[in-house]
C-alpha cells in the first residue's frame, strides 16, 4: 500500500493512547473505505494500541469493514418500523437487482455493496434505504430499480449542489419568514433542495423574506414541509412540497417587493412563467394550523424538550439567547449552589429518559458527593433502539439546549469535562453539535471560562461505531476508553467509578434537554405536568402502521390510545389497530385492548413493556406477533456483546425456537422451553441488554399466545411468515401480465389475457405480485 503516510498523520492528529483507537479506525475507514490490514499493523506500530486490542475492537463495531466496499454502499435499515413495513423484502430485492452473490455483500464488479444497518432513525419514512450519503424513504421491493436509477440521477446532478449547513441569513429585522424543516428525515424527503430553491427564488425576486432553516417540525409524515410566517398574520403550512413548486409559492405569498422597484423585471419573469409553463398550483399543499389534521397532531402535545420546535434555526446562537437560552446556566453559575440545582431536579421529579427511568437527581447527587474534581458528564446519544429517533432529532434541532443541559449537570456535579457520545449513524447530529460547540468556543463560552464566568468546562465528541449495547452505561464507557463495548457488572456504578475509574454522570440526550427548562421555569412547573410518579413530558418517535407518524412530545399520563388515534390519526384505512411496540428490543407489545394504558414508567411496566427511550411503533393486523418477537431476538442476538452466557447463547437459543416457529417446525415442547428460557435469560444476564432481551417474547406470549399456537399448527394468522403462506391468483385475474413481468424470480409464466398461475416452488413470497396487481387478484393463503 502506498499511502501509509495517512496513518502517521492520523495518529499525530488524533493521538496514540488506547482511547484513540476508535477515532483512528474511523479515520482509516473514511480514508480507505475499509480497514486494510497493512494500515492496521501500521497503527499498532505507531501507537500504544496492541494488535489484540485493535483486532478485538475493529471486529466488535458494525461500522468497521475488513473487506473493500463497492463504489456505492447501499444500507438497508432494519429498524422496527422498516421491518414491519417490508424492509426484508426490500433487502432481498436490492440484492437480486444489484446481483449480490449469496454469502457476500458486494457484487462481482464491485459497483454496489449492500449491507444492513440496525436503524437509520428515519422511521416515519420506512422502509428506508441509504445509498452513500443519500437517504431514500418509502422503499419497496418493486420500486428498487427506479430507486437505484433515481439515485444515480441525483448523483449526477448533485455534484454542484451547495451544502445545506449555511449560516443564518437573518439580519435581525422582523420580516416574513419561510421555515424549512431540515432534520435528517426532512432532508431524506428532499427538503434541502427545497430550501435552496426557495432561497434562490427569494434572492432573484429581491424580496425581504427570510428563508430559514429550522429543526425538526415533527410532522414527519408530511415532509418536506414549510411554514410561511408573516408578522401579524396566521401562519400557513405547506406539506409534501417539491422543489419545483417552490418558486410559485414565493410568488403567491410575496407578490412584489415594491410597486416600482424592479417592477418591470418581475413582470417580465411572471409573464415568462405564464408563457413558458402553467403555474403549478400550490393550493393543494396548503394547510392552516387550525387545519384539523395539524391541530389533531399538535393539539395534545406539550413542548419542553422540543420547545420552539420547527421555528428556530438549530445553529443560530443569537436566536437561542433571544429565547432565554443559557439563562438557566447563567443562573446556575451565578446564583445557585450545586445542591440547590440538584434539589430542583429532585423536586421536578425528572427521571432518566433513556429507558429505565432512574431518578436523575439521585445520580447527580452521587456524582456530586464523590471526592476529587476529575469527574465527567457524558451525554448518551447512542440511540440504538430500532424505531427511535428522538435523540437524533433533539441533537439536530436543539444542539445548544443539550449543551446547556450538560453544562448545568457538570456544574451541579463538579465535573469539568463533558463528552458527547453520538452514534455515527447520525452524521447530521454530530455535525450540528460540532458546529454549535465551535460557535460557543469562538465566543469564549466553553473551555476555560464557561459563559465567560469562572468555571472550566471542556467539551468533546466521541462518535459511536455501531453497537447497540453501547447505550448501556458501562459498555459506553468501555467504548470511550477505546475498548470493545462489553458491559461490566454494576456496582460499582459509573456515578462512583466510571470513565477512567472516575465519577461519571451519564444522562440521555432528552433528559439533558429538559434540564434548562426546569431551571428556567421552576421544578414545580415541571412537576405539575404528568402523573404521580412520572413527571413532565416524554418525546416519542411515532412510526409504523400509522397515518400521521412523527416526532411528538406529550405529557406523561397521556394514554397510548390518545397517541395512536388522536395524534397519529390511527392505522391506515382498512386496517385494524393491533398493538403498540414500545421500548424497542427491551420493551414489549401492548395490545390494542390495553391502549388506555397511561404512558408513565409504572403503568407501562405493569403491562410488561417499558417506557424505553421513546420508540413507539404502531402495529396493525398485518403484523405477525411471532415474527415481531423473532425480529427483536434477531436484533438483540446480533447486538449482544457476546460476553455472558445467558445473553450470548441464551438469546441465540430463543431465536432458534422462534425461527422454528416461523418456519412451522416447532412443537408444544419448544414453546414451553421458549418461555422457560426467556425467564432465565432475563434473570441470569449480566447487563440490561440481556435482562430485557426476552421482553418482546414474554409480552407477545402473554398477549398473543394464540398466534404462537397457530404457528405450531403451521398457520400464520397474519399471513406474514413466508414459510407458512402461499400466493395464489384468483378468478379476478385479467391476464394483464404485470405480475409476470415484475416477478423477480420468474415464478409467474407470462400468459396474456389468461388467468396467471404462480409456481410456488420458485416463489419467494416477496409480495411484489400482490402489490402490483391492478385487479387485486392475488391472495395470500
Amino acid at each position: 500500500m502506498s499511502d501509509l503516510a495517512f496513518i502517521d498523520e492520523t495518529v499525530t492528529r488524533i493521538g496514540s493512547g488506547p482511547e484513540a483507537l476508535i477515532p483512528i479506525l474511523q479515520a482509516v475507514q473514511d480514508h480507505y473505505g475499509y480497514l486494510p490490514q497493512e494500515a492496521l499493523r501500521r497503527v499498532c506500530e505507531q501507537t500504544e494500541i496492541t494488535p489484540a486490542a485493535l483486532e478485538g475492537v475493529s471486529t466488535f463495531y458494525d461500522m468497521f469493514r475488513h473487506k473493500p466496499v463497492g463504489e456505492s454502499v447501499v444500507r438497508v435499515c432494519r429498524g422496527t418500523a422498516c421491518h414491519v413495513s417490508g424492509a426484508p423484502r426490500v433487502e432481498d430485492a436490492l440484492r437480486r437487482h444489484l446481483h449480490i452473490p449469496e454469502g457476500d455483500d458486494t457484487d462481482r464488479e464491485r459497483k454496489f455493496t449492500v449491507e444492513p444497518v440496525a436503524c437509520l432513525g428515519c422511521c416515519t419514512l420506512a422502509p428506508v434505504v441509504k445509498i452513500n450519503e443519500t437517504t431514500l424513504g418509502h422503499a419497496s421491493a418493486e420500486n428498487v430499480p427506479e430507486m437505484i436509477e433515481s439515485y444515480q440521477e441525483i448523483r449526477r446532478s448533485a455534484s454542484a449542489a451547495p451544502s445545506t449547513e449555511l449560516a443564518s441569513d437573518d439580519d435581525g429585522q422582523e420580516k416574513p419568514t419561510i421555515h424549512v424543516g431540515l432534520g435528517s428525515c426532512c432532508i431524506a424527503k428532499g427538503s434541502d433542495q427545497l430550501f435552496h430553491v426557495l432561497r434562490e427564488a427569494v434572492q432573484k425576486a429581491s424580496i425581504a423574506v427570510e428563508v430559514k432553516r429550522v429543526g425538526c417540525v415533527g410532522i414527519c409524515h408530511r415532509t418536506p414541509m414549510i411554514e410561511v410566517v408573516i408578522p401579524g398574520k396566521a401562519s400557513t403550512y405547506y406539506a409534501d412540497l417539491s422543489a419545483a413548486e417552490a418558486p410559485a409559492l414565493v410568488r403567491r405569498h410575496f407578490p412584489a417587493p415594491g410597486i416600482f422597484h424592479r417592477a418591470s423585471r418581475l413582470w417580465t419573469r411572471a409573464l415568462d412563467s405564464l408563457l413558458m409553463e402553467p403555474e403549478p398550483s400550490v393550493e393543494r399543499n396548503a394547510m392552516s394550523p387550525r387545519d384539523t389534521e395539524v391541530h389533531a397532531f399538535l393539539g395534545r402535545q406539550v413542548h419542553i424538550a422540543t420547545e420552539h420546535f420547527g421555528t428556530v434555526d438549530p445553529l443560530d446562537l443569537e436566536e437561542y439567547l433571544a429565547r432565554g437560552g443559557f439563562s438557566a446556566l447563567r443562573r446556575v453559575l451565578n446564583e445557585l449552589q450545586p445542591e440547590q440545582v440538584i434539589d430542583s431536579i429532585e423536586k421536578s421529579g425528572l427521571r432518566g429518559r433513556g429507558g429505565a427511568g432512574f431518578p436523575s437527581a439521585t445520580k447527580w447527587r452521587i456524582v456530586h458527593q464523590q471526592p476529587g474534581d476529575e469527574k465527567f458528564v457524558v451525554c448518551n446519544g447512542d440511540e440504538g433502539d430500532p424505531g427511535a429517533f428522538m435523540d437524533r432529532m433533539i441533537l439536530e434541532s436543539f444542539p445548544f439546549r443539550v449543551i446547556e443541559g450538560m453544562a448545568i449537570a457538570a456544574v451541579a456535579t463538579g465535573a469539568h469535562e463533558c463528552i458527547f457520545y453520538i452514534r455515527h449513524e447520525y452524521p447530521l447530529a454530530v455535525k450540528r453539535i460540532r458546529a454549535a460547540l465551535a460557535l460557543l468556543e469562538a465566543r469564549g463560552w466553553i473551555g476555560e471560562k464557561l459563559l465567560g464566568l469562572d468555571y472550566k468546562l471542556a467539551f468533546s465528541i466521541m462518535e459511536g461505531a455501531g453497537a447497540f449495547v453501547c447505550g448501556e452505561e458501562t459498555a459506553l464507557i468501555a467504548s470511550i476508553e477505546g475498548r470493545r463495548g462489553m458491559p461490566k457488572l454494576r456496582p460499582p456504578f459509573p456515578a462512583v467509578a466510571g470513565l477512567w475509574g472516575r465519577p461519571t454522570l451519564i444522562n440521555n440526550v432528552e433528559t439533558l434537554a429538559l434540564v434548562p427548562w426546569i431551571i428556567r421555569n421552576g421544578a414545580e412547573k415541571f412537576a405539575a405536568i404528568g402523573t404521580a410518579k412520572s413527571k413532565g413530558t416524554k418525546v416519542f418517535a411515532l412510526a409504523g402502521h400509522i397515518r400521521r407518524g412523527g416526532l411528538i412530545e406529550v405529557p406523561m399520563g397521556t394514554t397510548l390510545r390518545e397517541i395512536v388515534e388522536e395524534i397519529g390519526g390511527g392505522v391506515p384505512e382498512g386496517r385494524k389497530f393491533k398493538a403498540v411496540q414500545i421500548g424497542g428490543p427491551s420493551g414489549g407489545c401492548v395490545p390494542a385492548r390495553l391502549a388506555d394504558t397511561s404512558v408513565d414508567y409504572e403503568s407501562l411496566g405493569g403491562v410488561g413493556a417499558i417506557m424505553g427511550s421513546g420508540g413507539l411503533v404502531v402495529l396493525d393486523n398485518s403484523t405477525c406477533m411471532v415474527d415481531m418477537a423473532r425480529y427483536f431476538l434477531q436484533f438483540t442476538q446480533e447486538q449482544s456483546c457476546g460476553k455472558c452466557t445467558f445473553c450470548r447463547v441464551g438469546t441465540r437459543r430463543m431465536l432458534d425456537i422462534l425461527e422454528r416457529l416461523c418456519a412451522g417446525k416447532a412443537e408444544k415442547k419448544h414453546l414451553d422451553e421458549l418461555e422457560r428460557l426467556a425467564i432465565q435469560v432475563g434473570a441470569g444476564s449480566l447487563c440490561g441488554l440481556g435482562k430485557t432481551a426476552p421482553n418482546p417474547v414474554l409480552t407477545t406470549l402473554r398477549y398473543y399466545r394464540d398466534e404462537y399456537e397457530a404457528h405450531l399448527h403451521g398457520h400464520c394468522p397474519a399471513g406474514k411468515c413466508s414459510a407458512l403462506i402461499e400466493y395464489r391468483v384468483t378468478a379476478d385475474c385479467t391476464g394483464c401480465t404485470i405480475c409476470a413481468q415484475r416477478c423477480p424470480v420468474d415464478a409467474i409464466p407470462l400468459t396474456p389475457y389468461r388467468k396467471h398461475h404462480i409456481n410456488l416452488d420458485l416463489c419467494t413470497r416477496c409480495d411484489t405480485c400482490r402489490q402490483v396487481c391492478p385487479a387485486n387478484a392475488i391472495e395470500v393463503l
Partner: protein
Amino acid sequence: MNNFEITIDGQPVTLQPGQTILDAARQIGIDIPTLCHLKECGPLTTCLVCLVKINGKLVPSCATQAAPGMVVESESEEVHEARRTALELLFSDHVGDCLSPCQRLCPLQLNIPAMLRQIESGAMAEAVATVRQALPLPAVLGRLCNHPCEQGCRRGAADDSADIRGLERFIADHDLRLTAPYLAPCRAATGKSVAIVGTGPAGLAAAYDLARQGHSVTIFDRHDRAGGSLRAVAESELPGEVLEAEITQLQRLGVEILLNVELGTRITLDTLKSDYDSVLLAVGDNGKAETEKLAVTLTVAGIKTDAITAQTSLPGVFAAGAAVKPVKQLVRAMTEGRGAAECVHRFLMSEPVRRSGKPFSSVMGKLDAAEVQLFLQTSSDKPRHVPCDACAGFNNGEASSEAARCLHCDCRSAGNCAFQHYAQVYDADPTRFRSARAPFEQQLQPGGVIFEPGKCILCGICVKLTEMAGEPLGLTFIGRGFDVRIAAPFDHTIEEGLQKIAAQCVKHCPTGALSMK
C-alpha cells in the same frame, strides 16, 4: 472498615472488606461452580455459572463484593436451575466429546483411549492398571466380550475400528504372565462382610468391586468349581487356565470362595443374613430351583429387585445378574454385578442406596468425512492388524502399532475439566438446547499446543492472561454476539499469540479448548 458478617444459606461467615461472595462461600466449604474465574485475572463475569441470589436477584458471586449483613442464597433449587441452564447453554455450543464413543459404550467404563495410548507408548504397567481398575476378569473379557466399544469406534468411519478387545486381552495376558500380576488397590478394611451366592460373571464382578471397597467378601457356589456360566464356554474360546488365573487374582485380593455349598442345605439365607452384614444373590439362571426355595419374592423372570437399589424383598439382601432377569452378554452380567455391588456398598456404609449414573460427557454425534480426516492426522494410517489364529494375540510391536490407530477422539481434558465436572455435579443435559452442530475444528500447532475452538466457552482467561503478560500478539475476542470467537490478531496462529505463556493458558483453560499434545 472492620470485618463483618454475612450469611450464605443461613450459615454465617465473617469476611474482610473487599472479599467477594465467592470468596465467602469457599471459606465455608460451599462449592459454587466457576469456569471463568481465575484470581489473578479479576472477575471476568462471562460464564455466569457462579450465580447466587441476593435480594431476589441473581448475581455472579465472583464479582459481587460482600457487604455487611448480606443474605445470600446459593444451594437452592432456583439457583441450581439457573447454574444448570448456564451450563446447558454453554454445552449447546460445545463441539467435542468429553469421552470417546468407545468408552461411553463400554458398560464397565474402561478408559479405552488411555489404555491404547499407554500400549502405544509401551507403558505396560500403566496400561495394566488402567484395565484392571475398570474391569473384573479382563483376560476373560478380552476373549469373550461382545465389544460394543468397537461398534462405536470413530476409526470405523475411516477403515476399521481399532482392535480394542484384542488389545485388552493382550494387556491382561501380559499381566497374568507376570509372577505377581497387578493387584488393584483396596481401601482400608471397613469391617463389614458380604456374602455373595454364585460365582458366575455377576457374582465375581461384584466380589471384585466389594473387595476393593474394603469389605470382607465370601462367595458361595454349589458347584465344585468357580466360574458359573463361564465354565460352559468352550476351552478354545476361554482356556480353563485363564479363568483360573483370574479367579486366583480375586482370591489374592482377599475374596474367599467356598465351593460345593448349596443354599438351603448346609447354609440358609437366614444364616447368611445373620452371619454377614449383607447378602448378594447372583445365582444365575441355573440357580432358579435354588431361589424358589428362598423367602424372597419372585417375578416371572427371577428374583424381584428394586430397580434403583437392587434390593430384594428382604432388607439387606440384594440380587443381580441372570438371577433377576436373563442377561445375554457377559459384559452386561458383570455390569449388573457391579451395579448391585455399589448398592451393597452404599447399604453397608449407610449411604442412600443407588447405583451412580454414567459419567457425564458432551456428545458430538456423527462426524462428517472432513472431521474424521482431522482426527486421522494424529493417528497411524496402517490398516487394522489381524493376528493369525496360531499367534494367540498381538506381540508387543503389533499391539503398539494397532493402538496407534486410535484417533484420540476423547478430550485431552476429560477428567480434568471444570466444565465436565460441574455438568456432572449439576446433572446438566447437554442436549437440552441442541441445534445444528458447528463443525469440529482442531488446530495442531507445531509447538504442541492444540486449539479446539468448538470447545471454547469464551471465558476470556487466556485473553486476559496474554494481555497481562504483555504477549507481543496475544489473543483477543473477534466479532460480537453469538459468533464471538477467540483468535490471535491479524490471522496469526494461536501459538503465535502465545509466545510467552502458552503453558499457563493451557493450564488455566477451564475446558479442553487449549491443550498440549
